[in-house]
């Protein structure tokens, strides 16, 4: 995705050419919907939240000071909105304590299926306290780039690192049975 394309489209929209905003929507709809989906795990709600982000972006395009690339500004705006939306109406979750680990983590073939284990871990992430969950979501959304996650969250990198570490620690303590499971992989 080209930062130059973004800048050109923003300038055209600010000059009054609304149709140029479509370029921004088409370029960023996927990432914004996927980020929203990671927050709420509800496809319909993810699209609604992403649409609201685009509307707010349109309203505040003039406030984008070009000292940061457009995508950084856009993700910060989106993260802010998603976090407040989730605070207002939380995603459906169950407490971390009641997430059931498999009674026997090893299925009959001797290894826990990747899918089940991945699902259990993602569910556990979903019920972490918000500040750890948000740090983990943003970190993995930005391909494990702490700096990008920190910019999206509007927090210092050190704070994000500390929250990531604490979040992982909580996951380990809440899913201990999955820690010692031999894993089979297709050769």
């Amino acid at each position, binding site marked *: 995705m080209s930062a130059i394309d973004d800048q050109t489209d923003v300038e055209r929209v600010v000059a009054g050419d*609304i*149709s140029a*905003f*479509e370029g921004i*929507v*088409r370029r960023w*709809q*996927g990432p914004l*919907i*996927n980020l929203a*989906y*990671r927050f709420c795990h509800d*496809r319909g709600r*993810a*699209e609604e939240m*992403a*649409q609201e982000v*685009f*509307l707010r972006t*349109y*309203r505040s395009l003039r406030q984008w000071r070009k000292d940061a690339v457009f995508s950084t500004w856009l993700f910060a705006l989106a993260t802010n909105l998603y976090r407040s939306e989730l605070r207002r109406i939380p995603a459906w979750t169950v407490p971390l304590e009641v997430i059931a680990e498999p009674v026997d983590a090893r299925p009959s*073939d*001797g*290894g826990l299926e990747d899918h089940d*284990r*991945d699902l259990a*871990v*993602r569910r556990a*992430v979903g019920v972490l306290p918000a500040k750890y969950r948000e740090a*983990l979501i943003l970190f*993995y*959304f930005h*391909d*494990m780039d702490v700096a990008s996650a920190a910019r999206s969250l509007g927090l210092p990198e050190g704070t994000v690192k500390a929250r990531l570490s604490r979040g*992982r620690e909580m*996951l*380990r303590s809440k*899913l201990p049975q*999955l*820690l*010692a*499971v*031999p*894993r*089979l*992989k*297709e*050769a």
Partner: protein
Amino acid sequence: MRRLIGHDQIGDENELNRILSREDEILPSSGFAVSVMDAVRREAAAPPPIPFPWKSAMAGLVVGGLAMGLVLVAGIFVLVQSGREATTAHFSMPLPSTLPPMFNGGVEAAAIWTVLALLLALISVKLSMRLAFGRA
């Protein structure tokens, strides 16, 4: 063929990274961009929000502030006066005499205060009407 690759632990950071990086991607629905652009066009076509009429409101706020100040000064004056009189008369003074002299000036003074109060009310009503209906 499957082979045992060892006791990987999800507690291991690499394993956690592997699991959480592999989140399912979803595709936007086909009409998403169109619906966003419709919403943006509606937003652009809507008249801009009416700014708060600070200029008109300022006069009202100043008058209101002055009136509040007057009431406050009068209230403090009454309290001080009544306190002073209460100490001398051991709380036995009748209520009308606790009022400051300006309230005890007879019919003429009362008429002046009534006119002033009515004038203040009229100004408040006029300003409110002006704020509510613009400059009409």
